[in-house]
């Protein structure tokens, strides 16, 4: 069948690099894997036991969840706020959309290199600005309490991808709904919660799921700011799950342990996504047929 022939690249890729990789990873996670000899000796649940005993795993997981709980709602609110603003302007919206999108084009290393200096507690521009308003800014990159907000701030700078998805959703809300609501005397707040939010609930739902999965894997910014040369100033607070997994795999070469960590993360992401889908199904409104 010619159809199968055309999709065969994907089937091979799926079988080897996704399904195969997952199974391989599961096997390794139950083994003592030696990179030099490439031999995986069965080791039962040793890696999982080690994982539960390692306080760094628990700490990194707590950090990651804390970060996600802080980052995702903020990203949703800021992105939605910006999209609402842009949706109010007719001409000129294109210009602002372009400007807002530029950070999204900036490589993560570039963002990190700049924010490393902007967030400097003593000379950084952000604290300088705060000082102007009489506020003494925190030691963003040193104080354990401010390490995660720093990364959230950098993530928010690149929030425009989410914003664009909201903007597209806002544009597809039928205008007549607002006209009818206005006739019924609904104010802007009422219109927002009774029309806008339900009508774009599909986009909100999608963004929440995608941003959560991304937040649980946060890596680039944390690595560049804190773990680039293993001299993190607040090792506890900046150790995210993705960082620890990476270190265990590619610095310590504990592939069994790292695979066990990866599977725990996979199950966790799956559970969180399923929970979100369950909650989402109650609230998400799909217009007519599902697109």
């Amino acid at each position, binding site marked *: 069948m010619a159809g199968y022939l055309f999709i065969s690249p994907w089937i091979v890729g799926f079988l080897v690099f996704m399904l195969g990789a997952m199974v391989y990873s599961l096997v390794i996670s139950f083994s003592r894997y030696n990179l030099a000899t490439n031999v995986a000796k069965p080791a039962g649940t040793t890696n999982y036991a080690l994982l539960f005993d390692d306080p760094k795993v628990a700490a990194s997981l707590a950090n990651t969840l804390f970060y996600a709980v802080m980052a995702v709602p903020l990203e949703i609110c800021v992105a939605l706020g910006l999209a609402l603003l842009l949706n109010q302007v007719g001409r000129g919206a294109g210009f602002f959309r372009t400007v807002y999108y530029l950070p999204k084009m900036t490589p993560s290393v570039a963002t990190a290199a700049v924010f490393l200096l902007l967030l400097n507690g003593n000379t950084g521009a952000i604290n*300088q600005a705060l000082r102007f308003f009489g506020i003494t800014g925190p030691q963003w990159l040193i104080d354990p309490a401010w390490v995660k907000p720093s990364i959230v701030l950098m993530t928010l700078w690149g929030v425009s991808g989410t914003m664009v998805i909201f903007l597209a959703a806002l544009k597809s809300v039928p205008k*007549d709904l607002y006209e009818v609501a206005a006739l019924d005397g609904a104010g802007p707040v009422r219109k927002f919660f009774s029309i806008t939010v339900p009508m774009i609930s599909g986009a909100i739902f999608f963004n929440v799921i995608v941003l959560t999965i991304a937040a649980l894997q946060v890596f680039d910014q944390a690595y560049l700011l804190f773990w680039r040369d293993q001299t993190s100033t607040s090792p506890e607070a900046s150790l995210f799950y993705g960082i620890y997994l990476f270190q265990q795999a590619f610095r310590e070469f504990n592939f069994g342990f790292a695979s066990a960590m990866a599977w725990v993360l996979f199950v966790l992401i799956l559970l969180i996504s399923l929970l979100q889908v369950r909650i989402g199904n109650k609230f998400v409104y799909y217009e007519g047929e599902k697109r």
Partner: protein
Amino acid sequence: MATTRTQAAGVEPRTDTRPADEPPRPRRKRLSPRSKAGRVLLWSLLTLFSAAFLYPLVWLIAASLKPRGEVFDNSLIPRTFSPQNYIQVWEQLPLVSWVTNSFLIAVLAATLVTISSAMVAFGFAYFRFPGRNFLFGLVLATMMLPGAVTMVPQYLIWKNLGVLGTWIPLFGMNLFGSAFYIFLQRQFFLGLPRELFEAARIDGASYFGLFRRIALPLSIPSLVVIFIFEFQASWNNLQSALIYLNAGSVEGFTAPLGIAYAMTKYSPTNGGQGDYQFVMVATLLITLPMLILFAFGQRHFIEGVATEGRKG
């Protein structure tokens, strides 16, 4: 099909509910804020946010033009102009090799993923075969597969294939198509009139001929979208470079890995001299291609991302 044409009749005002499709751009009716004060507030907010989003980039440009002692001074106009940074940086860092490596890898990655995704998409769009919908569902499902989970086993697979130390792990996955691009391209193929293919079939074209001579030439616009999306993803990719290239020579780094290396090299805590202006120049030079790419493909980027949200 017919529903999208309804507005062509256009005699009646649109009292009926519009079809669920995205409304065509030109007939957007604005719910503009009525009051003048509202307008002023709106435009000030938009401008304020523009400043916030632009500031780090403007800061970067300024810092790249400052001498060593002034890089941290936050002034947006350098007090001492130091354009020689742009000359010295080439001696300080192997920027030419980094950019060349990144560019070649990005071109390879983008070309491969564009062709393979288009091929798979054509299989899903044109043919009917048992299990098609299930398999396509699987394609969409893999989009949710976290990269952190397959990172370790994929490394081991490449190791077993004996290609560690080459560039293959950095673009090899792209031979097999990528879920989001397959989705995008399938949508595009579904929009092509089927009669075109039927006619070519009657003329004796093979299935591969249909793909190569009809489907591909007609989808240049969407192929370009996939290409620039993947080019950007590859150009910015730090993690793969860390896994596969970090152990090699500094000349073999990609641009993001190189910048990470330079950040450490000049960091005073690492015995560097704090010559951060070089990091800033290098950073600006590797960001610039992305901004240029965006200038040319702006609409594609934004619409591509918006599409991503619509499949949910």
